């Protein structure tokens, strides 16, 4: 062994473990924002469908802003805006808030499409059988409309999972940020990026294949 002092050391098994933990954090922030955003987005989608004029004038343009401004700008903006109004959020909190709103803006459109996919006569028939409005939403619209837009929702969810990489800008150590830290130390960008990319691919590819197959089998 050479007795030389170096700031750099090779990529070893501990670093792999470090990346694994970071991948879990990526998964955690994505799961949290996707589930919160989906609930919120379904509500927004319902409001857009039912609210007619009021919703098209207020909610629709508001959600549109979140789809028309880059996520990275939204993150930086919110992270710097929160202290102004007296909120002290750590990078994780800010990331979850923005990713949740971003998800809900995307899911709102999907959910509205789902409600529109259920035929009006079907719903009228349900109502005329004595089913209440909420029962109709719960037992008729949700299963049928949900099925129609499930692949689209999976697409949105995977997109948010990948976009969660942007939270690294705020300093949250998720997968991509972890790979940056390791690159700085080991000076092996190619190897580490391949490992990080493989993690993302392993998270995303099976789900996207599953959704594609589901779509194919439902189309028949």
């Amino acid at each position: 062994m050479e007795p030389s002092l170096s700031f750099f050391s090779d990529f070893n098994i501990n670093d792999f473990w470090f990346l694994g933990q970071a991948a879990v954090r990526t998964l955690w922030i994505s799961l949290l924002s996707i589930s919160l955003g989906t609930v919120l987005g379904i509500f927004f989608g319902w409001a857009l469908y039912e609210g007619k004029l009021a919703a098209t004038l207020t909610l629709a343009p508001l959600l549109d802003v979140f789809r028309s401004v880059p996520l990275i700008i939204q993150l930086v903006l919110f992270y710097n805006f929160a202290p102004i109004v007296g909120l002290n959020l750590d990078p994780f909190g800010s990331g979850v808030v923005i990713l949740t709103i971003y998800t809900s803006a995307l899911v709102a459109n999907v959910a509205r499409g789902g409600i529109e996919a259920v035929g009006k006569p079907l719903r009228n028939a349900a109502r005329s059988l004595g089913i209440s409005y909420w029962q109709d939403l719960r037992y008729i619209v949700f299963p049928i409309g949900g099925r129609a837009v499930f692949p689209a929702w999976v697409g949105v969810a995977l997109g948010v999972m990948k976009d969660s990489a942007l939270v690294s800008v705020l300093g949250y150590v998720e997968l991509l940020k972890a790979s940056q830290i390791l690159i700085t130390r080991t000076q092996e960008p190619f190897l580490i990026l391949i490992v990080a990319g493989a993690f993302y691919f392993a998270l995303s590819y099976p789900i996207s294949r599953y959704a594609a197959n589901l779509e194919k089998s439902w189309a028949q």
Partner: protein
Amino acid sequence: MFDYNFHWRPVLKTLPDLIDAALLTLQVAILAMLIGIVIGLCLALIRLHMKGSLYWFATSWVELARNTPALFQLFFFGFGLGAFGLHLSPYLIVLTALSFNCAGYLAENFRGGFLAIPDTQMRSARSLGMTAWQAYTRIVIPQVFRIVYHPITNQIVWCVLMSSLGMLVGFRELSGETQFFASRTFRIFEYFAATAVIYYVIVKLILVASRILAARLFRY
């Protein structure tokens, strides 16, 4: 209510620079889009008509582009290739990463478009005496274009939004320029708010232009 004084003057003073940077953003996005359309078309045709190594090459391109974060791709072209002594300028990093990503997404759109055109269209065109090239360019492509028109519009918007990641590799397009000014004046919130507005305007302009173009193109 706010314990914070907003200073918009520095933003106004550098607004011309921001507009210039916005034009650079547009330039990169449109260039990447054009490259993406050409490569995406090739990838789609390869995936539809070829087997063997070319098919696997195209499929892995598409899956890699769609299943890893855009930011990861940007870092890969930025730092990953640096390991082989290939140091691209920030402009080229953003351009290659965006083109790579757009090509992957567009390839799937194009493939769906081609699959939606019945075989009989091609066969009847051929039986009318058209060559394969004529049948493709005059019968199949125009119909595919109609189907993929809106996905392409969405992709342009996505491309503009994604170019904002350039600020993380030191590219001074709209976001990079904003970060540069923001860190010089410490008016982070004001600068990023102004940039968000500019992005919003750009996206709206693209959508309006696309709608006008669609009205002229698809009159029949």
